[in-house]
């Protein structure tokens, strides 16, 4: 690597374009929003940057604190479910035969390359009242009822008079399902990377010394794959926290997340200063999550 003073003309030639672009079309827009977060509304669309903190104070209103809390809980549950589902999947891929490994890995990555909106839309078709999930459940219901009547229990109607489709869409559960559906590959890939590097003889040693599979998993595999677990958790948690589309399309009126509130301030409520404050609070939460990861990484490195 050479010092920039040794090749000034090349340095400027290479660096000028991207730097100007970043400043003009990224940092400047962010600064404008940051300034707006300290502004007051004057009339319908006019704003004046007065340095007020009232927008941030308003975010502490119980109504909005609840939205923040809900977003954190949704992102947290999504991370937990992805970890529980993703760990066996990653483990199965790592211990698959070499011929199958790239195929399974590709199968995990492939949905990630499909448009997010289309995947969410596909989920709507599966989860709605007249959707495939209920269709499948109804089929099972009919089979069981037939079976019961064959057994002579038909007159008791143990499973109810008729099939009641479940309300799977437009509620908090749908949002969690949607978030896990979208973010699962982000969890599996870092776990796979961590587990692949794991020295298998360590598991064998634990098993030889009489540990059960479960004990070997908890005391050997999990601690050694901690960097992968942390990376995966952060990679799922951060985008899940700022999700807009999933709660918007799959959620009900009470499953709005921060991004939905921000969108409303900018698109329909026309309260840009408040929306700006909320979006910076969301950004600070994201940075906090990243900082936490850095702390974990340092601790893991120090061991």
């Amino acid at each position, binding site marked *: 690597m050479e010092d920039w003073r040794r090749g000034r003309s090349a340095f400027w030639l290479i660096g000028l374009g991207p730097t100007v672009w970043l400043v003009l079309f990224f940092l400047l827009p962010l600064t404008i929003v940051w300034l707006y977060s300290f502004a007051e509304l004057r009339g319908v669309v006019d704003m004046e940057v007065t340095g007020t903190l009232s927008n941030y104070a308003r975010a502490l209103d119980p109504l909005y604190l609840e939205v923040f809390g809900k977003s954190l809980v949704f992102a947290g549950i999504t991370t937990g479910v992805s970890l529980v589902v993703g760990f066996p999947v990653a483990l199965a891929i790592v211990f698959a035969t070499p011929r199958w490994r790239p195929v399974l890995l590709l199968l995990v990555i492939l949905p990630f390359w499909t448009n997010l909106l289309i995947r969410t839309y596909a989920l709507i078709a599966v989860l709605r009242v007249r959707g495939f999930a209920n269709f499948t459940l109804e089929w099972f219901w009919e089979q069981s009822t037939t079976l019961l009547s064959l057994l002579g229990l038909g007159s008791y109607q143990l499973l109810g008079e008729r099939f009641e489709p479940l309300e799977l869409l437009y509620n908090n559960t749908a949002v969690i399902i949607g978030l896990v*559906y979208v973010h699962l590959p982000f969890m599996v890939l870092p776990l796979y990377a961590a587990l692949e590097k794991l020295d298998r003889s360590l598991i064998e040693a634990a098993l030889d010394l009489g540990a059960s599979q479960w004990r070997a998993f908890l005391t050997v595999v999990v601690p050694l794959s901690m960097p992968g677990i942390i990376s995966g958790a952060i990679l799922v948690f951060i985008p899940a926290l700022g999700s807009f589309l999933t709660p918007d399309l799959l959620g009900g009126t009470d499953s709005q997340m921060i991004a939905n509130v921000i969108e409303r301030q900018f698109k329909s409520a026309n309260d840009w200063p408040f929306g700006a404050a909320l979006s910076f609070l969301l950004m600070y939460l994201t940075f906090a999550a990243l900082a936490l990861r850095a702390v974990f990484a340092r601790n893991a490195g120090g061991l």
Partner: protein
Amino acid sequence: MARTPIGPLEYTRRTWMRLTLLATFVFLYAPIVTLVAFSFNDSRRNIVWRGFTTKYYEKALGNSDLIEAFVNSLTIALLSTVIATVLGALTALLLWRFRFPFKAGYEGAMALPIVIPEICMGVAMLAFFAKVGWPSGLPWPLSLSAIIIAHVSFSFPFVAVVVRARLAGFNQELAEAAQDLGASEWRVFWDVMVPFMRPGLVAGALLAFTLSLDDFVITFFTSGPDTVTFPVKVYSMVRFSVTPEVNAASTVLIVLTVVLTGIALWMQFRQEKKSS
């Protein structure tokens, strides 16, 4: 083939492991597969199979709004990819080649578009274009300029990451040899650096292209009534109803991105084979 007993570490051969794997893949693929399958279903109700038809593809093709949105999306993706690839490659070169003051801060700023939530970037772009009074109602390709700029801003740091990973494997002696043989700095750049970076450039460009084609949130905040992209159009359609037409249009987009990704993976695979 003789069935050998399952070894203690052969987790993938255990039944419950296989069931977990199967259930996960069903969860990941069932929605997409049903979406594609029912774009060929001869029924508006979209739930029972009533025979094969391509009429929803014809209908989608006849929907001029949808076609216009599709053309807009491809144009935006193409133009923003070109700009993002150039800027990303330059960023990678800068960070790879030079030591300079506040480099860590510079790298942090470059990583910002990757880490900040999409919604924050979307509202920032909305506020920016409103503040500077970006002209609307320009003739066609120029009317997309705001969206193209926004897409370049979030995709070029991704390109930079990919190209920089490629540059990490560069043997500095190659450039020095060329210089010793009398090549100018410019010549070294075109004849040594660019050919070496090519696989990274291609992978980065394909990444930028799919990112642009996929983006909904940021586009949602920068598009106007005359500059609707495909995801924005689908969003407005989905809000009203689930129709086989949307399925057909989505299938086309899925096929397009899967093919592009396939090409990218294949090129990467070929490159790895060549270098090993």
